[in-house]
């Protein structure tokens, strides 16, 4: 009896908060068929927004993947002082408000900021342009690969790498043939999480981009812009596409989720 009531609580909870709202949006969007949604999505500014989102993601994900792997290896396999501090800074993006992140970048690279003068002199447009949006996205999606790689590396231990050494493999050979393959699922899962975060980023990019329509709007910024322009249908259409991508991401996460392997 108690079992059923607990189950009911959980199901109602998830339906009310997650599934219900999403279902309504799907319904509302396709109420009048596919045509209006398609129209909204083919708007040139919307297409540009998606392109921008994809470009930013395509840059941020590899950068954070390399960082995550190098960082994970350094923390687990090497000894140096200040590991705790390093761990704290890696985790910080998870606990920090995106608006605070955007503001921090805004202040650092703005005209009066420490880097601002240098950028001005070299005529480099950082804020209100792609570079700042990429940097902001890198910041907020920084931890994911590292946080998956670190526990996996710890669990695996380094005996396979020692064996490779005794068999004559150089450092680089050991890394490519032994270390990397042994953590590949952790890396893949981390990459999926990173990608999801990059695609969904809103607050930090909203601050640094200036939200210039048709120029520095990402897909998520575009949703807000359409809503503010009273184009609810347009906002829904973009949201549906983002939601579909999210469901694909969920699928990928479920398939690649690291399982606790028995010894």
């Amino acid at each position: 009896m108690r079992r059923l009531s607990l189950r009911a609580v959980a199901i109602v909870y998830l339906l009310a908060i997650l599934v219900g709202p999403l279902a309504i949006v799907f319904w509302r969007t396709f109420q009048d068929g596919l045509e209006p949604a398609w129209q909204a999505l083919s708007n040139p500014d919307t297409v540009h927004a998606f392109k921008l989102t994809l470009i930013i993601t395509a840059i941020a994900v590899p950068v954070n993947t390399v960082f995550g792997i190098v960082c994970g290896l350094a923390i687990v396999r090497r000894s140096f002082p200040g590991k705790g501090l390093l761990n704290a800074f890696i985790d910080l993006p998870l606990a920090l408000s995106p608006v605070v992140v955007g503001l921090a970048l805004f202040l650092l690279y703005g005209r009066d900021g420490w880097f601002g003068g240098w950028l001005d002199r070299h005529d480099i447009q950082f804020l209100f342009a792609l570079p700042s949006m990429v940097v902001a996205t890198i910041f907020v999606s920084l931890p994911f690969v590292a946080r998956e790689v670190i526990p996996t590396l710890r669990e695996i231990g380094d005996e396979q790498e020692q064996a490779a050494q005794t068999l004559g493999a150089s450092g680089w050979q050991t890394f490519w043939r032994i270390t990397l393959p042994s953590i590949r699922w952790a890396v893949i899962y981390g990459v999926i999480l990173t990608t999801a975060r990059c695609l969904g980023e809103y607050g930090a990019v909203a601050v640094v981009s200036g939200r210039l329509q048709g120029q520095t709007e990402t897909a998520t910024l575009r949703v807000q812009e359409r809503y503010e322009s009273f184009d609810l249908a347009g906002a829904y259409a973009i949201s549906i596409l983002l939601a579909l991508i999210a469901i694909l991401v969920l699928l990928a996460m479920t398939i690649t989720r690291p399982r606790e392997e028995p010894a």
Partner: protein
Amino acid sequence: MASLASDAARLAPPARVSRDRAGTALSLGFVTTFLTIMVVLPIAALIAASGEDGWSGFWDAVTSPGAVAALKLTLGASLIVSLINAVLGTITAWVLVRDDFRGKALMNSIIDLPFALPTIVAGLTLLALYGPRSPIGIEIAYTRVSIVLALMFVTLPFVVRTVQPVLQELDVEMEQAAKSLGASEAKTFRRVILPNILPGILSGVALAFAKAVGEFGSLVIITGNLPYKTEVSSVYIFGRIESGDNVAAAATATVLLVISFAVLLSIGVIRHFATRHEHA
């Protein structure tokens, strides 16, 4: 997310550390340079900017009525949501681990939706169901309730995912021993299960709290951002940036920054506390 349970499992003796000093210097150099440029310097610039008008300027900005109202609202809502999560999240984790039914795998996957869905889309979807022209007649947009609702969406996975692995690795035999010694279901839960999953619950709550305090995207649409009514700190800061009031924005942001650091610290403490039984 690295779980507390796996933390305990990994207190096994560490593998040998590399003595290749050149490699250590190189990788460490790369990592610290990257982090300094990407994380440390922006944060430093933020703190510096908040102090531009001196301590009095900082204090004035942080105690201005708008900022205070926003902060009270933010902290209050985040606290409520964290407590709701503690209960509902634990129940959900319990159902996922201990119960078995068709569709459980689907339920397990859906939990991660808030990680995958952009926050702005989350806000919009909540508006569709609970806003004007709500199909079920619940219209709570532009109210304080909407804040709690949106925060519940974005923080839903946190407690569930921190409690799940702990529950999974919990030794069933401990409970069986308690029952064989005469403890009732409720007593067993309170005295055997709860103490063991408490660190998991607490760290999930801490993560949820941090996320809630800083949440922005999902609140922008559904709350209407009415100052003193439904304007949270992140929205307030955004407003100050748009008005060009950098000091006020930076000062309030620094307060949020401190809260974030405090939460990270408390999670570290919880982790240490949780694994103290494993220390020699």
